[in-house]
């Protein structure tokens, strides 16, 4: 199988590492070669963060480059817009519509762009935007946005619900299992 590329983007602290951990566990059960690249250290502190997930018969590079991503899963709208160039022709952006102001916007040095979903669509980008934060809160915690997004992403793959659930069980603490299963389901149904 040709290598598939998923980018998970967001704001440092939003929980993208758990999402990539979950995907890694899921893909390993199918016997794929996998590479998952993460960001640690300084850039995690509320900055723009990106995780690369690649899988296929043989994966070489640990990173996804411009024009290569099959899917970009974004925790935040501005971050989806930031990384569009990484999407490959025919690729798809799945994004939470939540907006978090970056420091240049907070201090008035820049504006948060308006109507980003429409602008991305107008540029010819396939965007699937939805309110993952509300669904996460409905599931019981705003922190479950990552699992809601994974639920929504799952609609694009042929993994069974059981496979996803097994991966969630391996990735989240037992006491948050039910909450996360619910978050996944809400995301998958959205």
């Amino acid at each position, binding site marked *: 199988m040709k290598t598939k590329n998923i980018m998970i983007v967001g*704001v*440092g*602290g939003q929980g993208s590492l758990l999402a990539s951990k979950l995907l*890694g*566990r899921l893909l*390993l059960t199918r016997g794929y*070669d*996998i*590479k*998952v*690249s*993460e*960001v*640690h*250290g*300084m*850039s*995690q*502190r*509320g*900055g*723009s963060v990106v995780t690369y997930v690649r899988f296929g018969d043989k*994966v*070489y*590079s*640990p*990173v996804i*480059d*411009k*024009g*290569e991503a099959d899917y970009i899963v974004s925790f935040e709208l*501005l*971050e989806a*817009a*930031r990384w*569009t*160039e*990484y*999407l*490959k*022709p025919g690729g798809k952006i799945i994004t939470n519509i939540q907006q978090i*102001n*970056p*420091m*240049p*916007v*907070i*201090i*008035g*040095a*820049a*504006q948060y*762009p308006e109507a*980003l979903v429409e*602008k*991305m669509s107008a*540029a*010819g*980008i396939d965007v699937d935007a939805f309110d993952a934060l509300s669904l996460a809160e409905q599931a019981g915690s*705003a922190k479950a946005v990552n699992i809601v997004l994974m639920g929504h992403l799952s609609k694009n793959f042929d993994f069974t619900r059981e496979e996803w659930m097994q991966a969630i069980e391996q990735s989240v603490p037992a006491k948050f299992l039910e909450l996360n299963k619910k978050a996944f389901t809400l995301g998958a149904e959205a």
Partner: protein
Amino acid sequence: MKQLMLGNEAVARGLYEAGCAFVSSYPGTPSTEITEAIAKYPEVYAEWAPNEKVAMESAFGASLAGRRSFCGMKHVGLNVAADPLFTIAYTGVNAGMVIGVADDAGMHSSQNEQDSRHYARSAKIPMLEPSDSAEALAMAKAAYELSEQFDTPVLLKMCTRVSHSQSVVETGVRTEALKEYVKDIPKYVMMPGNAKRRHPVVEARTRALVEFAETTELNRLEEGSDHTMGFITSSTSYQYIKEVYGDTYPVLKLGMIWPMPEKKLRDFAASVDTVVVVEELDSFIQAHCEHLGIACKGKDTFSCIDELSQNRVADAMGVTHDAGIALSEAIPPRPPVMCAGCPHRGLFYTLKKNKLTVLGDIGCYTLGAVAPLGAVDTVICMGASVSGIHGFSKSQQGKADNKTVAVIGDSTFMHSGITGLVNMAYNESNATVIIVDNSITGMTGHQQNPTTGFNLKGDPCAKIDLETLCRAVGIKRVRVVDPYNLAQCDEAIQEELAAQEPSVIISRRPCALLKYVKHKAPLAVDESKCVGCKACMKIGCPAISIVGGKAKVDATQCVGCGVCEQLCKLGALKEV
């Protein structure tokens, strides 16, 4: 069993399987997780040392005692440990000793982009360089074999993309390795007479290692169908070449980056029309090829700045690839910021308000340089704030005395701030050092240090008392402030700057992200009182923004630290 493992965790697994029994490291991105992962194996003694020099010397002691040992650090940490490195290279080891060093091409979390491979050549010791997690595990084990076979410490060189990428590994079982300590003065006492006899041993060892490099499987030839071109490479650059070209051209992949083979390189060069060396950062493999008289392309094609990627390799080689769609809209950057509730914020606000010159240091508080605070004047390396302020204030002949402070974190102070403070006491500086004590090593992801009272394994242990330590080196004026209390910070800073002797202010409040820190209720804005004056915006808190001309607090981020509340003269910011 097949598992997905971070490169750093794979190194730890390799150390474990090789029977490593002693690990001492100082945290530093991207190397930190090696030591965090090895600490989970009960068979291995593992610790955080106060700095890399101590870590390396401790690891040497363990090797001398007959236990396979490891010390891990980031590239700039190896500068700190360079002193023992160059002499352990002469003594050699008893049990195997491996030194992990992780470079940060692209400077994701570093102050420079130095290429640690030069250390292997300068110190005359072998260096292995894996390109993914499976190799990281295998090479950690191979490094011990090499170390004991050739009586040398071995450098295991990682980089951000290998350290922080997960890939599939197959794990094995642990083999215990134990040697007896035997006293050997000519080998281990490096006074001139003995060192003179050891230097030729080092040179002979390198020659033997070159022979080893000719045949070892660490250096791998991958055949290609087209011999008009051939690549010599290592580490992630190998992955990028394979990503772009697949199996089209032959590739000589060097797993042992120093010393390099000679015949193998020449034979490879003779088998292809054009040799292309692909490596990140400096010309290292290329320089060696040229030294051997092998004509090759390299840094004329690829930059020595920043990390490579498949597209960068393709672009440099003129290979086309897909392009994505960039929006015409300007997307505002999202730089890292101090977290909501960060105890450093109140302190840096006070420094800015007093218009002070601030000599900064390495840690989360480097972010005090970012707008809107912009309160830091310089950041060089671990400890440079304290040593730097001494030179700065002495050279300003009194002009800087009431206007200049050094700011250094608790862990960084223990790492290499103490000696600078000793110098200030000894040579009678008139300057103020502020230790921002957030009770943890923050930037690298919450590691314990000598001031926290806990060790790497999380067990309670001896706790260094910063106040006592500062007084013991001769600083008479030592006081503690709460950085959430702006008036207290202001008063302390003004009084200590006015004093005619060196002083230390400890700005103490645990990192807001620590699990045990209890947060207060988020604040909210009373819109009837807020006039949109933006006084609360001066601290650059990510939880506060102006919406419709009034301040707004993001309740999901706010931890109720109350610093903004102290800036609002109208009392519009309050607990709900």
